């Protein structure tokens, strides 16, 4: 999987993907139509899968496309359809809220960016060559050793089960016994 990872032309692919993500990311939150915003989100996720591939986390890219785009965006679209919030298409928040929201987001961005610049962690380093293989990723899920993630793996499955049942119970029609 190294063909994507040689250094110099992967740099400009990254900039391409990043540019697209920024473009679509911006529009997801700004657009008045909820449905379009869902579509833009889908494209942002799609390009971020690209970045994972760039960084060699190809299983994750696959998972991303599968779960996020396949599952969550579809769910969101269903929700939009079910709740007829489509007629609420024009979601234009009052100006004051927009201003405050923008102010909050921008200050957050500026402060964190400044902190990142200062932080000694991100030393300028080129993309290292070797990367972990998917086999080691798979083994880690079942490895009950110190560095293994068996327990969280089991937990996450129980969680998902709980959430599934919970979601069904909440969204059920009123009980007739009332």
């Amino acid at each position, binding site marked *: 999987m190294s063909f994507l990872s040689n250094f110099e032309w992967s740099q400009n692919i990254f900039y391409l993907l990043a540019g697209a993500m920024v473009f679509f990311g911006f529009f997801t939150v700004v657009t008045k139509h909820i449905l379009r915003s869902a579509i833009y989100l889908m494209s942002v996720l799609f390009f971020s899968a690209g970045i994972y591939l760039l960084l060699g986390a190809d299983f*994750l890219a696959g998972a991303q496309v599968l779960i996020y785009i396949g599952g969550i965006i579809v769910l*969101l679209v269903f929700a939009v359809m079910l709740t007829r919030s489509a007629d609420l298409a024009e979601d234009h928040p009052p100006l004051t809220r927009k201003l405050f*929201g923008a102010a909050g987001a921008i200050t957050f961005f500026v402060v964190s960016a400044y902190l990142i610049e200062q932080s000694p962690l991100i030393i300028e380093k080129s993309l290292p060559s070797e990367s*972990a293989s998917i086999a080691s990723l798979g083994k880690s899920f079942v490895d009950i050793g110190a560095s293994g993630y068996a327990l969280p793996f089991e937990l996450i499955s129980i969680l998902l089960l709980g959430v599934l049942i919970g979601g069904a119970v909440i969204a059920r029609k009123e009980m007739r016994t009332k």
Partner: protein
Amino acid sequence: MLRQIVLLSLFLFSTGLYGILTRRSSVGLFIAIEMMINAAIINFVAFNRFLAPSHIDGQVMGIFAMALAAAEVLVGMAILVMLFRQRKNTDIQSMNSLKH
């Protein structure tokens, strides 16, 4: 390269934040939340790749984060459906009965 990725994810996170603070419809809210979670996963993968290439912890965290995001949206949608059935609209600003 790492710096640019982190900046990118920061940008995504902030736009998600803007989305949460301004969206009126709850679905828009969820969209913004998904975006923020995705920004976090990008960070995981990026730091794993640049700082500890031989390990896989970053990616494992990414997968778990994705699972949680899915769970979260599911519950969110269930509540949304309930709310919609009772309130007939999904506008967040009108749901302020918990005020003083």
